[in-house]
């Protein structure tokens, strides 16, 4: 088992079920002891590949997917939907899955519904704008806020 096996298992389970696997399930799926799976989760988190709930092995983020509901939903052409950690990540879900799709979210200021639509690899025109409050070099000081 490599850390990449674990990373891919987490992503594939999130895509398939919407739920991130716990270390016990990952260990069983990859035929390794739970402690080895837990150590892989720790390394992936240390390397900023996944984000865990503090003090646990519960996956919070496995970019571009969120393991918890958010207000940034990637709704795919195949009828399935997935939570992104932010609009960037929700667009990333569409890129990762290689399908047409749309990101359904809301205006941060006024809660008006906003949709970004991707068809045949192109983003449909929109009047919406993106705002980054935190410079790139500081994103990982608090990735959940970023």
């Amino acid at each position, binding site marked *: 088992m490599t850390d990449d096996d674990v990373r891919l298992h987490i992503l594939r389970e999130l895509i398939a079920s919407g739920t991130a696997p716990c270390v016990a399930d990952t260990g069983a799926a990859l035929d390794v002891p739970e402690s080895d799976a837990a150590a892989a989760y720790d390394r992936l988190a240390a390397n900023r590949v996944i984000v865990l709930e503090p003090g646990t092995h519960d996956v919070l983020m496995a970019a571009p997917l969120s393991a918890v509901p958010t207000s940034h939903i990637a709704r795919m052409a195949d009828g399935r939907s997935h939570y992104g950690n932010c609009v960037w*990540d929700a*667009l990333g879900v569409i890129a*990762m899955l290689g399908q047409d799709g749309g990101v359904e979210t809301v205006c941060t*200021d006024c809660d008006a519904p906003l949709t*970004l639509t991707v068809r045949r690899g192109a983003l449909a025109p929109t009047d919406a704008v*993106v705002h*980054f*409050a935190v410079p790139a*070099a500081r994103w990982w000081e608090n990735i959940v806020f970023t």
Partner: protein
Amino acid sequence: MLLFRSEEHVNRWCEQRGLDRGAVFTPEQLWTVAKPWHGRRLDRGWKRFTPAEAEAVFAGAGLTDTFWHL
């Protein structure tokens, strides 16, 4: 990273919270970044971008000022 209906809504939201305005750009630029950033995540052997690679992705979307330096 947040989405707004317009720059007017960005400015109002920042003012109400006493926050400095950060970087404002278009969803098209964000899509240009999101494709290389996330598009190969399901590939075996995927690796996070190095800072130089990440800055090149930002630059490909026209995001080149110091806000985007790593």
